[in-house]
């Protein structure tokens, strides 16, 4: 992996922030974009912008082809079987909500159980809380062992015919913890439950293969994987999606409308009402190209290397505590930490003055952060373009900030 060359592909990395070189360590919130992706948007708008589907003119044919080509790229990227299994959404949050609104409202009933884990992002908590409230079903949490791992044995003893859906994050956006998703899916397959993977923090960073995982649904956001904002993906197994009622109603998702009634279009269009986010879907396809070209194994290896480097740095620091630290095999390039005196907001504002961008707050995972007895934490999260030199800058500046507020 040629880090220098990769960094050249990201125009924003040349930005100065408060007079300093930008050190962008907020990748779990959103990633930066390579020129290839930005150019694809410009190319679309300058050369073939048009509404898709059913247009007979050249621009519309080209836009439709590129839009559908991008779907194939995404399909290939996660090794799904069919293009029809790739539904474009706005973001992972919408993808998860679609499952709750359509599959959930049809299949979850009173006293049924839905399982999630204590590691979830709000977007993988609140839709299920609402669904359970509406259906008088139960939202249950897979318990943890004393060492903080998912307790698979206890989980096995809790599931049964009432278990309807299990939705888990592949990697925690706060702790960087990798969850044993394959084992959980395996166990789930002994019940009638469908399995949902929140892959927001995995698809951008490691090889993900939906056939190997054998999950029923998988959700992720384009903006966290070098793609534009406004585009996300809902993957679902064909037969399950095909059985599901539609979500939004209107143009493009119908095959026939009379004044009284309507018939639904085929997959994937059944779930794509109205004019899609054409430009950004195409941009996401180019992001997949870019990542594929580097190789997801290489992406992942780079990130755990940088992640380890951050962990090792924190080991030697007093007053700082790394949240949920795990063995190397169980975590990726996301490190959350707290200080015994200085508040994360002050740390974040302080680092920003040196051009170092980290995230501070609850990271949309209030229950998890609170389980560490705090309300907010600071988080550094890496991606393909981050270097060890940047980590050195981050740590040195962090110590300056600590000195200032201590």
């Amino acid at each position: 992996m040629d880090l220098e060359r990769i960094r050249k592909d990201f125009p924003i990395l040349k930005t100065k922030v408060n007079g300093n070189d930008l050190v962008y360590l907020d990748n779990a919130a959103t990633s930066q974009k390579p020129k290839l992706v930005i150019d694809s948007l410009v190319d679309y708008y300058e050369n073939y912008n048009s509404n898709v589907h059913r247009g007979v003119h050249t621009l519309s044919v080209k836009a439709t082809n590129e839009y559908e080509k991008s779907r194939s790229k995404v399909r290939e990227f996660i090794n799904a079987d069919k293009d029809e299994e790739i539904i474009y959404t706005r973001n992972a949050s919408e993808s998860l909500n679609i499952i709750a609104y359509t599959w959930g409202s049809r299949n979850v009933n009173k006293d049924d159980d839905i399982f999630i884990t204590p590691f979830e992002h709000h977007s993988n908590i609140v839709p299920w809380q609402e669904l359970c409230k509406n259906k008088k079903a139960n939202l249950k949490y897979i318990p943890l062992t004393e060492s903080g791992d998912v307790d698979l044995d206890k989980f096995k003893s809790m599931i049964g015919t009432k278990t309807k859906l299990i939705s888990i994050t592949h990697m925690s956006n706060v702790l960087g913890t990798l969850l044993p998703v394959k084992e959980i899916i395996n166990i789930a397959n002994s019940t009638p439950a469908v399995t949902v993977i929140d892959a927001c923090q995995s698809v951008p960073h490691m090889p993900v293969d939906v056939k190997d995982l054998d999950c029923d649904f998988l959700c992720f956001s384009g903006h966290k994987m070098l793609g534009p904002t406004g585009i996300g993906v809902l993957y679902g197994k064909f037969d399950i999606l095909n059985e599901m009622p539609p979500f939004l109603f209107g143009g493009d998702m119908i095959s026939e409308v009379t004044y009284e009634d309507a018939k639904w279009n085929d997959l994937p269009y059944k779930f794509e009402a109205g004019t899609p986010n054409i430009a950004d879907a195409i941009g996401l396809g180019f992001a997949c190209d870019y990542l594929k070209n580097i190789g997801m194994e290489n992406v992942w290896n780079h990130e755990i290397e940088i992640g380890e480097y951050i962990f090792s740095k924190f080991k030697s620091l007093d007053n700082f505590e790394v949240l949920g630290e795990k063995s190397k095999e169980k975590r990726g390039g996301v490190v959350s930490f707290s200080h015994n005196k200085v508040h994360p907001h002050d740390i974040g504002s302080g680092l920003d003055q040196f051009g170092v961008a980290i995230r501070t707050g609850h990271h949309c995972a209030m229950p998890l952060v609170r389980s560490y007895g705090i309300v907010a934490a600071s988080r550094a999260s890496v991606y393909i373009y981050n270097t060890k030199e940047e980590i050195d800058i981050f740590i040195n500046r962090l110590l300056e900030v600590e000195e200032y507020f201590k």
Partner: protein
Amino acid sequence: MSELSDFDDMYQEVIIDHYKNPRNSKKLSGNYDETKAHNPFCGDEIELQLIISEDRIVEKISVTGRGCAISQSSGSLMSDSVYGKSIEEVKNINLNVRAMLKDEELSDEDLDSIGDSYAIEGVKKFPVRIKCALLSWAALKELIDKY
């Protein structure tokens, strides 16, 4: 930290001083009003105790809490700004502080009324931090509005 500018504006020396040495942080005894404000997004907390005299003057005030330098120093500065002031003056100061952070025009008189709390003006360049700066003022409003 030599390169700092907007940052220095936000974290002025007086802010850091009030953060490290908060004023009026002794809990009151006797017959006081009390409220607690908190921001669930970042965990900032302010506990405010007030004794309003019969002639409607802030006779005693206590501010304590946990959180970032802005929320905590702002609470301490607030206590200095409103101590000894009448209810009407305090209500006016509260409005003026909010106006200042919204970058609205203020008359010299209104600016003067704010007193030491003028130090939090630099926060207005950092919209996400305005909530921190206003936490104690929100608590104050809650107690004062009853009068």
